[in-house]
């Protein structure tokens, strides 16, 4: 009787503040597979959804930054565990969405899990690498410590919808930032599936928020938003970067611009991306007090 069973189609929604709302605009758009056949409907986020996501991120960021670095590492490792458990589901999503072969998709999922584990390890070590005890000519201690920048807007890579996404989101949250992620416009499904992984991984709601929609519509709003402290332009359309940087300059955002063509996400990462979204704080204090 299998053929008579009614198909249960999934509605992909946004991930904001730990919840899965539809777009307040009520809009959605058709996600197509590599041959142009319809694959799924995803929410088409509006600027108001983005605003809600920034509010949620701002609310969550303080608590996430105040959590111990060890705990952040544990949570990231938990995300890796949950992703590993859904390995087959993500392989299917990549094969259907990006048109990868099974082997390519499997290696992308493996790479994503490994990337999460890699950054999980960094969360309680980056301060030792980027921070220092500075020699000063006086009877004082002088320390430099990296602190999270705050709320980071992330335009996820357009082509590599899972490995690229994980490679830009993990370094942002590993150091205690909160992220507002605009998923790949053409392939939003892995990002929205990843949101379900994040929601069940002890990651506090709001630390990562995922919206799907038109990058060209959302990117300028995110860039101009004064409550966003940094911006990752990995998924920005070629030629729009200068404009986004100009909008971001209003509140002196940190803007990370990717070189063209985009980085090879399967290559071994470096801590640079993680350290970009930190601020160095230097403190003095007298000896013995």
């Amino acid at each position, binding site marked *: 009787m299998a053929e008579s069973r009614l198909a249960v189609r999934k509605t992909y929604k946004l991930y904001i503040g730990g919840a899965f709302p539809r777009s307040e605009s009520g809009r959605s758009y058709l996600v197509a597979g590599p041959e142009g056949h319809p694959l799924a409907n995803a929410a088409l986020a509006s600027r108001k959804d983005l605003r809600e996501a920034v509010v949620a991120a701002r609310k969550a960021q303080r608590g996430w930054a105040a959590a111990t670095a060890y705990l952040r590492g544990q949570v990231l490792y938990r995300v890796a565990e949950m992703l590993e458990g859904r390995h087959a589901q993500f392989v299917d999503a990549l094969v259907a969405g990006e048109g990868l072969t099974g082997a390519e998709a499997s290696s992308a999922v493996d790479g994503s899990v490994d990337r999460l584990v890699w950054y999980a390890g960094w969360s309680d070590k980056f301060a030792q690498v980027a921070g220092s005890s500075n020699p000063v000519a006086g009877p004082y201690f002088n320390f430099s410590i990296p602190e999270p920048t705050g709320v980071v807007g992330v335009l996820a890579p357009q082509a590599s919808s899972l490995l690229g996404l994980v490679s830009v989101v993990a370094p942002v949250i590993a150091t205690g930032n909160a992220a507002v992620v605009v998923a790949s416009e053409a392939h939003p499904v892995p990002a929205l599936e990843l949101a379900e992984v994040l929601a069940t991984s002890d990651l506090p709601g709001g630390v990562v928020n995922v919206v799907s929609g038109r990058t060209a519509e959302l990117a300028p709003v995110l860039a101009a*938003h*004064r409550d966003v402290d940094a911006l990752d332009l990995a998924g920005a359309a070629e030629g729009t970067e200068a404009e986004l940087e100009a909008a971001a300059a209003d509140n002196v955002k940190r803007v990370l611009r990717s070189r063209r063509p985009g980085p090879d996400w399967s290559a071994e990462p470096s801590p640079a991306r993680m350290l970009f979204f930190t601020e160095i704080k230097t403190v003095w204090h007298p000896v013995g007090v």
Partner: protein
Amino acid sequence: MVDRGRDPARTGGVPPRGRNSGLADVARSEVSLRSFLLGLPGVDQVGAELRAAGLGARSIKAAAKLWAIDTAISMVDLTTLEGADTPGKVRALCGKARRPDPADPGVPPVAAICVYPDLVPFAKAALAGSPVKVASVATSFPSGRACLPVKLADVADAVAAGADEVDMVIDRGAFLAGHYGVVLEEVQAVKESCGPARLKVILETGELVTYDNVRRASWIAMVGGADFVKTSTGKVSPAATPPVALVMLEAVREFADVSGTAVGVKVAGGVRTTKDAIKYLVLVNEVAGEAWLEPDRFRIGASGLLNDLLMQRYKQRRGAYAGSQDFSVE
């Protein structure tokens, strides 16, 4: 635009228009007051909530929203009622009241500052020469549990210190016990002590349990001489809610019809976002009428709301969303 016919909270049993003697009779004795209050028709609870929710769903956009934001700012009673209040905090708040957004002189000042009586002199000094009024809570705010002479001394103290407005609390215990006359006499006595200061009467609707009680308490306050009826102290939850405001706005409109005196309404507590504030403005316009859309007849008691109004105003004028750190935290 003004749709009054369907208001479920509409009062049918009040004395007809033009018969002021009717209201004088009401205050004559405990018995007449009681029979008047109990004679008020009941509020349709479901209907009132439905209507308030319906009016709250109105969409106010663009130029209308900008107008609503500026109007709401000019109606804010910027409030600090904490045990930890200091003269310095009050001065800082007064600075914000005069000029809510230092970067934009186009933002109107708020209506008033609302503080405890002992801080009135500091607020008065900090607001000298500005149109911002100083309001003081009194009568053993927020519980109102003190004897009448103590309450009146509290009021006299605030007025002597220069308060332009006095926010009194009614004796909810007496009201709930059915001693309406006690409540009325207290309001009348406080009104007398106020002198030139305007009197706002806090009903603390969160403790009055039913909408019928809210309507009765509103009438007692208005008959007693209130210049404003105010929902809550902000210390009790639930504080202001749209249905409660609807019932009070109804009562105020009926009172104006009967007596010719326009009493204002102040919602306080729980109004935190621009969206909430605009909902109340819609209620005011639709229930009491457009004449109530001004700071002498409608106020919003709040502290955090002002920053949200400023952020929304920034967005409307500049196109980009404002940051949470762009405006001072009072």
